[in-house]
């Protein structure tokens, strides 16, 4: 028996973990071979992170046992797990901003030396050398003397990986590592993971993105509502099959939509430029039009001016040049309220920073577009009953789940339901122009499907849709017309049917001539 088990470096057997009200893991057994990339696939709340937290020593299982290299272990803290060469890259990085990359990596296990045999000091020179060597071995480009505050998310993630390698971790757990990365950075990360596998490391990848699993994983365990559904060999399983198993029903990977039926021009953006607070021109002379019944999608790598473009249309930032016309009315110099009343609905990128008041009730958030109008308020005084009944209708219609209905404090709701509330509130205005910025970021498959359907329904109603997304698949799947933005310029505008995703990807990198 033991000989058979040695092929598995990690075994978690019959793991059960309960939290109040839910069974987070119910008799889950996974076995990971040395040197493979093992994916854990499941929707938000399926129990993937809980399972890995137990392997990493954050929780103890109520039941079941964990074996590392065939040996039974009980981890009481992450440091005990680290002693067994287990490392984890968390979704939210744990780095000291004003320390250098090298200092962050050695933090806690600093190489100490004594000057003149008495005065202890940290030998950063040696540490940096070691880091450079490691970074060469695995193709992980980091400069140990850079400050964390000066580097971007993608490099910060590399620092987190380097931290594990420096501690000689053999089993690496990645918790949703691609959620915050652009397509190019994802590509780079997957390459690193391949390098790590070549170097003999074992990788456990937590994700809800099937594409990544297809690209890189060897085997894939699917969790749903705390239960292990199946363990699949990635090569012999189709994407559709994985999606169905993950959600538990037949999923439409591509949103069905009819042929477009264009009406008059609704939004006319002409020669629009925006300078940001640092006096940098982030949107440069952008012109485009969106007709009624058209989904105009803007594709682009994050930070190329797409959010500023949406903000300039809705009035959150000032346009420094050019005009914005809605149904022929020049709205360039109107206030935010005037524009939204003119007929703009806006689903913002950062839903918690812009879209909702986390400390207000759900009903206060749902009437946000109407509270100043009769019958929700009269002569400046609220009619609470009207507000609540309106909120109740939206909760029903858009299936917004919350603990206590209209009076639930929004902070206590899940991200998916917060987004449903925003989408419902904005769609209910039946505006001629609806702007979606990253509408499915961080949502799971069921919620994504739902929102995609809403987008198409809005278009079929005859609204002009501006969809801004970093997900190329989303753009390709929904758009009637695609505009590619690069460095603040609209490089290419074309009918979606005439473009392949490779071409769009090239334009996203700033290549104009194919």
């Amino acid at each position: 028996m033991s000989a058979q088990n040695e092929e598995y470096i990690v075994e978690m057997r019959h793991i059960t973990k309960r939290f109040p009200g839910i069974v987070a893991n119910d008799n889950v057994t996974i076995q990971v071979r040395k040197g493979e990339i093992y994916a854990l696939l499941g929707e938000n709340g399926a129990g993937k992170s809980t399972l890995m937290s137990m392997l990493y020593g954050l929780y103890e299982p109520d039941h079941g046992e964990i074996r590392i290299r065939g040996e039974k272990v009980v981890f009481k803290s992450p440091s005990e797990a680290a002693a067994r060469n287990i490392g984890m890259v968390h979704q939210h990085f744990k780095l000291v901003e004003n320390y250098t990359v090298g200092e962050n990596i050695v933090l806690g296990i600093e190489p100490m030396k004594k000057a003149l045999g008495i005065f202890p000091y940290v030998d950063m020179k040696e540490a940096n050398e070691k880091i450079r060597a490691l970074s060469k071995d695995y193709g992980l480009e980091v400069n140990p003397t850079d400050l964390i505050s000066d580097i971007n998310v993608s490099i910060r993630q590399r620092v987190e990986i380097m931290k594990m390698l420096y501690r000689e971790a053999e089993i690496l757990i990645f918790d949703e590592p691609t959620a915050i990365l652009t397509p190019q950075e994802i590509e780079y990360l997957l390459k690193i993971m391949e390098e790590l596998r070549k170097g003999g490391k074992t990788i456990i990848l937590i994700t809800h993105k099937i594409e990544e699993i297809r690209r890189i994983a060897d085997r894939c365990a699917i969790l749903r509502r705390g239960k292990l559904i199946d363990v699949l060999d990635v090569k012999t399983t189709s994407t559709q099959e994985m999606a169905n198993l993950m959600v538990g029903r037949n999923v439409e990977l591509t949103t069905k939509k009819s042929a477009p039926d264009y009406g008059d021009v609704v939004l006319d953006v002409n020669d629009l430029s925006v300078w940001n607070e640092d006096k940098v021109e982030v949107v440069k002379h952008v012109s485009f039009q969106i007709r009624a019944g058209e989904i105009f999608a803007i594709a682009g790598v994050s930070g190329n001016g797409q959010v500023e473009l949406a903000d300039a249309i809705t009035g959150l930032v000032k346009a420094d040049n050019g005009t914005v016309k809605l149904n022929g009315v020049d709205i360039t110099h109107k206030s935010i309220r005037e524009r939204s009343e003119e007929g703009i609905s806006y689903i913002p990128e950062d839903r918690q920073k812009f879209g909702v008041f986390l400390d207000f009730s759900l009903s206060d958030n749902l009437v946000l577009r109407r509270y100043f109008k009769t019958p929700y308020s009269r002569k400046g005084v609220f009619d609470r009953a009207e507000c609540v009944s309106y909120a109740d209708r939206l909760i029903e219609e858009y299936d917004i789940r919350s603990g206590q209905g209209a009076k639930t404090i929004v902070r206590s709701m899940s991200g998916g339901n917060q987004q449903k509330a925003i989408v419902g509130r904005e769609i209910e205005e039946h505006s001629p122009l609806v702007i979606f910025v990253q509408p499915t970021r961080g949502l799971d498959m069921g919620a994504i499907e739902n929102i995609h359907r809403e987008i198409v329904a809005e278009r079929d109603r005859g609204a002009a849709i501006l969809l801004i997304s970093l997900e190329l698949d989303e753009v390709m799947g929904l758009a009637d017309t695609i505009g590619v933005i690069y460095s603040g310029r609209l490089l290419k505008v074309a009918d979606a049917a005439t473009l392949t995703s490779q071409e769009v990807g090239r334009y996203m990198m700033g290549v104009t001539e194919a």
Partner: protein
Amino acid sequence: MKKKRFRENIFKTALARFLTNEKWTKLTVPVFSIVLTLIVSSVFLLILGKNPLAAFQAFLAGNGFAAKVSYGAGAGMISDFFQFLNVMAPLLLASLAFIFGYRCGLFNIGIAGQMLLSGFVATITIGYMKELSPWIAKPLVILVGIVVGGLLGAFIGFLKYKFNIHEVVSTIMVNYIISYSTGFFINSKFIDPISRASKVITPASRLTLTKVNIGGFYCNVPFGIVLALIVAFIVHYIFERTVFGFELRAVGSNRNAARYAGINVGRQIVFSMMFSGILAGMAGVTYYLGYTNQILPKTLAGMGYDSIATALLGNSSPLGAILASMLITVFQNGSSYLSSVLGVAKEIASVITGILLLFSACGGFFRYVAQGYLRKVADERAYREGRAQEEAEKAAKAAEEAAAAGSEESKEKGGADE
């Protein structure tokens, strides 16, 4: 599982429930803070060799809530009670002033200055105007307080809106400017050489009626308390029921989302500071032309700062501020009687107030700890129930097997019999 499992304590659970009860947490947490304060200050008094019960009795007696041992000629419990209201009125108004800014995300630390300036302007205009009927003088005093405080507050708000000057910085600066410039004018023009304060105002303009005979006792009756209570309810109504109040709270809660929702954030900031200033102005006139009738030059009223703590003790809610200002006033106003009866320094009252504020500032922390404890209890219960369920399942299975085996056996037996 060698790790010692968490043990639940019924008293701790009950206390945690009490503190986190959704409906009552706004009340239970301050009550808990007050109880802690009484315990800790009792320890202080015991160390000083005094009887804490006698001390708390003295606090109550000093404010007319309990009988003193003896009274001076013409004074009684009711006189003390009116004196208590005299102090409470400006404190309540001042804490409402703080709340008005705070709910909109502004920290008005300049209430003392706004009080002083409006008190000063009202004093030198209406307060020194002879031959004015009290029916005209008193409303005018309040009006001057409103106008001066409102203008000053709007100015601070405008600085923030237009030049992005943080209100804490500008109000602290303005406090100094007001303190010294009014001090200069009082010293050079309006000084009373004997008291070294400004000359007293006319009785007609004073918002407190002095030496009113009520049931044979002389009392100082403040109009300010009526004003303050009405204003508290108006502020409550504005925040809870009006669109204007909703937008103020929206700006205070999340400025980005407020902008996104089309609320004119700059305008709300100016309005919020203006109303905060108006309330501070009202507090100023009830303080300087009511509780007292003259102004000490170059001195900011400590009440301007106490009001911040009072507001926080009241959960920054207008109705909570009524209770909080009562409590703080009991300690502050009762201190002289306490020191005369028990022979402890007057400052012990400030120590107790300080302890109270310290604990009330910890309100969020108490709630957090209680929630953490309840979560642990729930985790443990989930674990136990899961265990019990499994045991039951196991037992059922075993019983089933036993039964099956039994029946098999009996079958076999039966077969053998045949």
